């Protein structure tokens, strides 16, 4: 089963076996703040298995930006195709998250999500265009919307916004 093999391969990126985190709720910082409780800390690096019937994907790995290329190479070697790359603005944690979706063409279904979190003030992530050519446009679009710089990208100019645009509309503190 490709899912098991990929899980083992990705697990090797996180050397210390962490115990199953007790109160990991991703993004709960928003809701908890509204209810007046102390905000939950942002999610730590690690690999989680998800219920496909509810979440729609099987494996969820959060890596640090320097492990990103290794993780993506593992998936490339296992014949995954790149589905999409996008960003999420966690303004309350002062972080930006880049989310990579991968899937497979054959009937051995396994959807993998790779995430990485970076500081909002200096968002730089290495590019994966050398591994997957299709990441070129996805990364340009993420740069357009969030201002994340992809280190090593061959042509990081606006894709969807006008060529001279200098604003990043999907940031939570964007004012038109």
């Amino acid at each position: 089963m490709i899912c098991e093999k990929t899980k083992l391969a990705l697990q090797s990126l996180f050397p210390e076996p962490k115990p199953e985190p007790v109160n990991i709720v991703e993004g709960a910082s928003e809701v908890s703040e509204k209810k007046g409780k102390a905000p939950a800390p942002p999610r730590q690096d690690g690999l989680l298995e998800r219920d496909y019937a509810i979440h729609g994907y099987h494996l969820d790995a959060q890596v640090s930006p320097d492990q990103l290329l290794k993780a993506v190479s593992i998936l490339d070697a296992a014949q995954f195709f790149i589905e999409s790359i996008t960003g999420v603005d966690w303004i309350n944690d002062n972080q930006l998250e880049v989310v990579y979706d991968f899937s497979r063409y054959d009937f051995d279904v396994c959807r993998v999500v790779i995430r990485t979190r970076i500081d909002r003030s200096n968002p730089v992530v290495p590019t994966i265009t050398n591994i997957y050519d299709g990441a070129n446009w996805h990364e340009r679009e993420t740069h357009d919307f969030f201002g994340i710089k992809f280190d090593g990208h061959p042509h990081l100019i606006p894709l969807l916004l006008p060529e001279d645009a200098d604003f990043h509309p999907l940031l939570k503190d964007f004012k038109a």
Partner: protein
Amino acid sequence: MGTQNIPSSVVQFALADKLINIGRANSFWPLTFGIACCAIEMMATGCARFDMSRFGAEVFRPSARQSDVLIVAGTITKKMMPGIKTLYDQMPEPKWVIALGNCAISGGPFAFDGQYSIVLGAHEFLPVDVYIPGCPPRPEALLQGIIELEHLVSDWKRWKNPEAA
């Protein structure tokens, strides 16, 4: 046609002008310029069921130099606006503009607080003659718009006004 810059001839031939206007009204040549969803309804109007060619307007010209109606069909973004203005400037006179669909009239469903990318209507930079509302407007609405433009261009009407009859 108040915005047109047509030089008035020294000797006025009223009957010839009238005939020429009727000729213009019955043979609009639109520019093939579909931007978004409304373009599909424009193509459907040109096809067999709704048949714009009954009114002389089925000859879509790809080149702006050969067309006289610019049907703005779809949302105008700030990135696209200079292109549309260039196309309009390239069309020889007399020329008219039809704003097809809510987006071309006022930004349509994409005008919300905090929008950063669209122009709120074709009238912001073009002199629009006919507005056709709808999202998208039915092909019959586009035909009605073309007939309205015919009335604007010439005095000749296809059928009597029901109230006046």
